[in-house]
């Protein structure tokens, strides 16, 4: 097979998949009324996807913040501008690292769990059993997990950012000796509401997309052990690539 036909075939497959995911999302929107009558299902999923991810998010956030503290201190000290460390760390986290790293961690922890869970339900006929019991598995299984994930990501991002700033504070102020007052006052000085909003918009989009892919891959997984494994891998790969592409696009739109 020559390269052109290989590429064009992959492109057609990609477009086909995009269409399938789109249809799936429309199907979930149609099943939304079922879930609106049962909000407890969504709360349960916020617990599964959000609360249970808190430890990994906080640990990662703290270390990412500490690295920013070190690197930021090194960079700013070359410019004799150590006092700007607070502002630099906050902007980096709020606008970029917070939403992106949280979405990637979400795909790795909660996204894979969602895909494997739904894929196994498919493989063990639990979804078919619901169908036969006249219960729509889209409403009962897919939508609550989608919404739960989509709501969790922005909240997790907020936690990641807060802990990250504390990490930067710990390294910058406590270890490297940046002035405490300057660290916080420069942050207040330079961080605008628009910067916060940029992060909120990104994390909302990432949440919707990451959670959609996880649920879609699980729902459409081949009902075999290998099929569920492959679907789980696709969730991580696809989410990671899409998050990075979307990150660039949203940044370009908002700047």
């Amino acid at each position, binding site marked *: 097979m020559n390269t052109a036909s290989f590429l064009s075939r992959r492109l057609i497959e990609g477009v086909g998949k995009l269409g399938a995911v789109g249809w799936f999302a429309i199907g979930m929107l149609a099943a939304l009324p079922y879930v609106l009558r049962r909000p407890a299902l969504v709360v349960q999923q916020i617990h599964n996807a959000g609360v249970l991810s808190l430890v990994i998010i906080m640990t990662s956030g703290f270390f990412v913040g500490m690295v920013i503290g070190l690197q930021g201190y090194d960079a700013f000290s070359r410019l004799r501008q150590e006092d700007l460390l607070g502002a630099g760390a906050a902007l980096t986290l709020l606008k970029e690292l917070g939403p992106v790293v949280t979405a990637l961690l979400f795909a790795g922890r909660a996204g894979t769990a969602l895909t494997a869970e739904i894929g*196994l*339900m498919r493989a*063990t*006929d*639990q979804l*078919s*059993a619901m*169908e*036969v*019991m*006249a*219960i*729509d598995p889209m409403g*009962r299984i897919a939508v609550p997990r989608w919404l739960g994930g989509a709501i969790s990501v922005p909240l997790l991002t907020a936690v990641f950012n807060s802990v990250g700033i504390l990490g930067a504070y710990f390294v910058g102020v406590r270890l490297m000796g940046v002035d405490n007052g300057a660290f916080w006052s420069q942050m207040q000085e330079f961080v605008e509401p628009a910067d916060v909003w940029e992060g909120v918009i990104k994390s909302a989009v990432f949440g919707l997309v990451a959670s959609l892919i996880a649920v879609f891959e699980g729902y459409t997984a081949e009902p075999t052990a290998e099929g569920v494994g492959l679907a789980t891998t696709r969730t991580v790969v696809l989410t990671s690539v899409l998050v990075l592409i979307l990150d660039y696009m949203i940044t370009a739109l908002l700047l």
Partner: protein
Amino acid sequence: MSAISAAMAPMIEVSDLRYDSAGRRIFAGLNLAIRRGSITAIMGPSGTGKTTLLRLITGQIRPKSGQLKVDGAEVASLDRRELFRLRRRMGMLFQNSALLTDYSVFDNVAFPVREHTALDERLIRTLVLMKLQAVGLRGAADLMPAQLSGGMSRRVALARAMVLDPDLLLYDEPFSGLDPISMGMVLRLIKVNNDVLGVTSVVVTHDVEEISRIADYCYVVSGGQVIGAGTPAELGQSDSAMVRQFMSGAPDGPVPFHYPAAAYETQLLGGQRS
């Protein structure tokens, strides 16, 4: 249709049903009728589409052509709402039980009741415990599916399938993988459900001996068509060699032991015969 003729009409009517899956012909003109209140066995070698037939009856997949009516309604022409209404009158026992693994035995059985009714939780408790008592697992109400044996899972799934008192119960390979005691229990439950509740039962199986003890009527399906029909006794005396082979379990006959292949000597000796 008058009330009497409606009561006499078959619960399930299949005529000239055709269905292909992944380019393979599964049904090529299938015809059968399942009488109300009867236990009907659908038998046939593995891979003949017996489970597919149940999926067609429940409307999970649609036939390529032909008719499939459940209680007078053409399943393929129903919209989703009508299909769900029809399914609420069906119960299905899956081969692997298909219990919801996150829920306890009690919650699994209560699941369809909670979804489809607004009954008080106390009433649901009574109802679920009664169904669990009927399958002998009232004491297992608090266990999780992972703690159950294969036979117990099957019985819990049966309690769930019959919790809303369906008119039609579909059993997909209810005996496969069960020890003789569990098999005897499931067999008895199918019979009791049928006799006491007047449910129409369709049992897809290849356990000829077991089902012959309780079935009112049997269909043998092979090659996409019905190749034999009658009471278990009649099928044992069938003129068709294929039906007789299936009923007696002979390893070779019209259904060959060997999967089609090139000549044995040719393949082993690379085309040179000694």
